[in-house]
């Protein structure tokens, strides 16, 4: 059985605790990096990460982009969406099609 982890600032992710997910509050970049690496090495198949934190450790996340596990999903934090998740979808379209055909801007 695999586990689900949630990384981000404490205020954004506290609620997920009630759902029975494992939450890992982080304060800065170095902490986020070490927590993320730890989760990847343990049996976390699915990691939700707030966009604010995701932005800081983006290179680290990109490394796991082409493996089927772990699945890393950016979610909006308490400060609202920063479009990182949407940007990833957009990049995928551009990569596959060669042009942006889904997003009309």
């Amino acid at each position, binding site marked *: 059985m695999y586990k689900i982890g949630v990384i981000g600032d404490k205020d954004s992710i506290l*609620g997920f605790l009630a759902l029975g997910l494992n939450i890992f509050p982080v304060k800065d970049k170095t902490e986020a990096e070490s927590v993320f690496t730890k989760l990847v090495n343990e049996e976390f198949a699915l990691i939700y990460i707030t966009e604010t934190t995701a932005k800081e450790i983006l290179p680290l996340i990109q490394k796991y982009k082409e493996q089927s*596990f772990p*699945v890393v999903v950016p979610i*909006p934090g308490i400060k*609202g969406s920063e479009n990182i998740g949407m940007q990833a*979808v957009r990049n995928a379209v551009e990569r596959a099609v060669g042009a942006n055909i889904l997003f009309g801007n």
Partner: protein
Amino acid sequence: MAVMQINPTRMELTRLKNRLKTARRGHKLLKDKRDELMKQFLELVKQNKELRETVERMIGEVHKKFLIARAVMSSEFLGEALMFPKQKIALKAEEGNIMGVEVPILSFTTESTDESNVYPYGFATTSGELDGAISTLSEVFPYMLKLAQLEKTVQLLAAEIEKTRRRVNALEYVLIPQLTETIKYISMKLDENERGNLTRLMKVKDMMLEEAHNYKARLKEE
């Protein structure tokens, strides 16, 4: 297009012709694969986009509710209320297959199936806003899981499409023209050799006849 560095022999010609045949077949197969991948991809990415919009909106709502809950409750009480979750989620992860691309398939089971039983706290010290936030959050979660699966699939497919497209292009614009050129070069070279040989034979024949019958000397005599 450059011709390959190769000896213009009949054996090489046969070899190259076989390679060309294989390359053409591979090109066709890869092109079909690319088209099919693209078809699947476009469908999935559309879903992905819509689902992400929904999830982001719903999580925004959850945050808003939490904000209010935090405003009416002290953070100690809030932390305490959520500290020992009642609900446990077990994630099941399998690998599926789309056109040879390994994609994750995620599903989850909750320990308690009772929908109303997600609150890990007594209602005495908590505010109603917290209940709302938690219940919305538990509603979003299935969508979040679906999103995770879909998004990963889309990313993996995009990588595979890019790889396949590169291969198709390399075959179409590099390997196949190069092979065709080289085959043409070899067959022209062989033809040229053949013609050279023929002329040489005719010349030799002339010389031998001359030697045997002495045409020139006889012509002078007459």
